[in-house]
């Protein structure tokens, strides 16, 4: 059975929990005491991921790190229809948003760690970067909605939506509300309506 080394408050681990739930993949979890215990930096965890980060996902004898890579793996191995990671011209766009979700949007995650857990960092600078990332998503989704769409890429949900969703939703933990983002407001409701959807702390069950 696949295994997720998990931290309940991590938006990156949540990407994996959400994707497995949407695909109906059963897996076991091992809770890692990321905070306050820093267990992700323990020798046992560093042996699994020398970067000392979560999530780590074991499946088919592979030990995978990086939430975006794990999303690709899940779509590749557990979605035979190929809708979550389309192989046609949408592939490049999906990859582009995965890169953004693991790149620019992680400013929201960093701001959240400072603001919520007291990690060191320049909160105002991280928030400003987070707002810039949120604006890029808002502009993109508003264009998609003007064209009659709703999802980040194409006419169906893809792993791009799943990669973007957690830190867009957790931005309030970093002090970034959603008042500026009407297109995000409509998109996130559609994500939450996907069959099998699960939430996490900070993303309420009711909407």
């Amino acid at each position: 059975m696949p295994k997720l080394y998990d931290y309940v408050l991590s938006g990156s681990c949540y990407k994996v929990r959400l994707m497995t739930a949407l695909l109906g993949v059963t897996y076991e979890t091992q809770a890692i005491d990321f905070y306050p215990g820093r267990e992700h930096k323990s020798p046992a965890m560093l042996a699994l991921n020398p970067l000392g980060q979560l999530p780590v996902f074991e499946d088919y004898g592979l030990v995978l790190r990086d939430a975006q890579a794990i999303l690709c793996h899940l779509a590749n191995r557990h979605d035979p229809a190929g809708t979550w990671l389309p192989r046609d011209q949408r592939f490049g766009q999906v990859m582009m948003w995965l890169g953004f979700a693991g790149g620019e949007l992680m400013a929201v995650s960093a701001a959240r760690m400072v603001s919520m857990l007291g990690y060191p960092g320049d909160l105002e600078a991280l928030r400003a970067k987070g707002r810039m990332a949120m604006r890029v998503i808002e502009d993109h989704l508003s264009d998609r909605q003007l064209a009659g769409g709703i999802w980040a890429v194409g006419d169906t949900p893809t792993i791009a939506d799943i990669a973007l969703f957690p830190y867009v939703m957790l931005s309030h933990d970093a002090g970034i509300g959603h008042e500026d983002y009407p297109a995000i407001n409509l998109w996130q409701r559609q994500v939450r309506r996907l069959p099998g959807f699960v939430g996490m702390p900070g993303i309420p069950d009711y909407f």
Partner: protein
Amino acid sequence: MSSDWTPIALSRDVPDGVTRAVCLEGSELVIWRGAGEAHVWEDRCPHRGMRLSLGFVRDGALNCLYHGWQYGASSSCVRIPAHPDLTVPPTIKANAYPTCEAGGLIWVGKEGAGALPALPATTTPVLSLAVATDGIEAQGLMRDLDGGRLHVFWHRVRPGKVMLHGVIEGSADVSRVAALMRQIRTQYEEGVAA
């Protein structure tokens, strides 16, 4: 133009069953739509002060996320789940503001507000866009387009920030007009607007 009414969102952006948080001159408002009708209330549940924009619309009523207190279209609380058998006193009410929809926009009015300003009869919504500036020259700023006209309305979020609301009268390519609105945003944020 009458200042009794302020446009705060595009009607399109608050479809049935949706809540939307809006900040107007530093005050927090919730817009929600149930059974087709849009409502604008203070974003605060009278029970424990929770923002109602985090709540959920069900059966044409708005429910607070914190304790599930349910408010009908009249803004009266109709159900307190912790006390299922209680008939809720009519004095428990959310704070509702005069609301109307016209020209593709949702407007909030002052108490006793007069008539709405004259608006184009039919419009196509473009975007609501947050802009870091103190305001733009006119409510209902117009830009002529091929085959139509862009009307830009706005409300002030707080000092230093406004939200623009663009609608098209006539016909035009909305995606190009969206790009035009983002150019307007850039001009204001870089301080180069005419």
